[in-house]
């Protein structure tokens, strides 16, 4: 028998500096609803469960197919994309929605994920291909290399790994798992490899890979099954070798 209503508990916050509060909503059940469609229903008729008029719940979403990462939030305490959080798969109890806790809240369920983008800049997570003349086509990648790189290229900087990482917090300078895994991606690219040393040196300093604590939660939380911990082992080896080179080769 299909259920009649969906109960939602949503953590609200009006501005980055205001205090948070909980609001409860009740919606008529429809087939194939997900968290995003529930939030859209609330937006049409922003009234709480006990009949008080409120503001529409604010959240961020773009692709609606789990490739952009922007609708990431805590759904029943777990960080995940709200677009692929199907209501019928979440059990019969109320669905709890909270903003990610490791990023500053902008409003309601929207957070500012720019610390993660800043870390990507720090590790130069791009391939410099510009020249003053046509540089020609780059070297080709073998299918085996493509296979490995593809896994890391799926990262959508959603922040799930950062949210669960016990080393990524206010007390620590650790840049988090996602940006470090991108070093693995860009250092394996034939053109990107030309800046491999710069990227490795960046993650050897404070806040880099050396501050990883091997709790390995990142790999459990990643919605894209990116082998983050394998990247850390691989980069651990590369940074060790570079360190020895610098130590004994100077």
């Amino acid at each position: 028998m299909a259920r009649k209503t969906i109960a939602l508990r949503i953590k609200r916050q009006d501005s980055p500096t205001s205090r948070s509060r909980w609001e409860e909503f009740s919606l008529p059940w429809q087939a194939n609803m997900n968290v995003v469609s529930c939030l859209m229903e609330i937006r049409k008729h922003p009234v709480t469960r006990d009949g008080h008029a409120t503001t529409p719940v604010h959240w961020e979403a773009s692709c609606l197919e789990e490739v952009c990462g922007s609708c990431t939030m805590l759904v029943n305490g777990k960080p995940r994309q709200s677009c692929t959080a199907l209501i019928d798969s979440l059990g019969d109890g109320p669905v709890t929605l909270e903003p990610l806790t490791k990023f500053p809240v902008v409003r309601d369920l929207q957070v500012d994920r720019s610390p993660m983008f800043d870390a990507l800049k720090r590790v130069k997570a791009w391939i410099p291909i510009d020249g003053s003349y046509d540089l020609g086509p780059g070297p080709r990648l073998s299918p085996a290399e493509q296979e490995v790189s593809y896994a890391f290229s799926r990262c959508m900087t959603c922040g799930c790994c950062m949210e669960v990482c016990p080393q990524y917090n206010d007390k620590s300078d650790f840049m988090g798992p996602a940006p470090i895994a991108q070093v693995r991606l860009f250092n394996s690219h034939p053109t990107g490899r030309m800046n491999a040393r710069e990227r490795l040196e960046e993650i050897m300093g404070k806040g880099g890979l050396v501050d990883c604590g091997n709790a390995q939660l990142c790999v459990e939380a990643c919605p894209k099954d990116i082998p983050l911990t394998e990247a850390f082992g691989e980069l651990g080896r590369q940074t060790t070798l570079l360190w020895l080179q610098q130590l004994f080769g100077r």
Partner: protein
Amino acid sequence: MKVSDRTYFTLKRLHSLTGVVPVGLFLLEHLFTNARALQGPEAFDQAAADLARLPFVVLIEAFGIWLPILFHMVLGILIATTAQANVGKHGYARNWQYLLQRASGILLVFYLLYHTWALRFAGGYLTSSSPYQYVNEHLANPAVMAFYVLGTLAACYHFGNGLFGFAIHWGIATGRGAQNAAARLGLLVFLALSALGLAALLGFRGLRLDFLQKPHAQEHGTVVLSGASR
């Protein structure tokens, strides 16, 4: 204190290295020497006397044991303060391992301060006529014995699971299979060393285990063959 990136990396790598060599190596030696207690007071007293007679023993102690432990300890405390444990929300096995690594480390700070004060720096042990007897009386207090059991378990866990972290940090175990194997190896080392360490503690309270002895076991460091058994 401001340190350069390379110094920071070197300090973290040295922290990882000192945990295995020499501190981990010393733990192995220590527990094996303690296990001589399972062969009786004479055997342990002899082993203790042999160690005390090692050439340059004070230098070995200072630079092979105290200094590396102190370094590992100070950096370890700093590392532990950057953690934000969340096993309540995410109770995966590796997350528990991560938390226990830090918790055992902090416990060991207190345990080692007490242990080295009681059996090294307080003085009574080094001047006692029978080290075995001294430890026997030290452990007669159930609260002290309980603290030693806890300290031994913490040290064995910290070393065993530390090997898992060591293998990843240094890039020895890179693939998922290798990392899982490293975690299992760490668990095995923890269990085996714990058995050895706890048996040795009981040895100081009278437990005797000699069923795995070779028939030509030596006593008192001089060759005394137990000819009667042949």
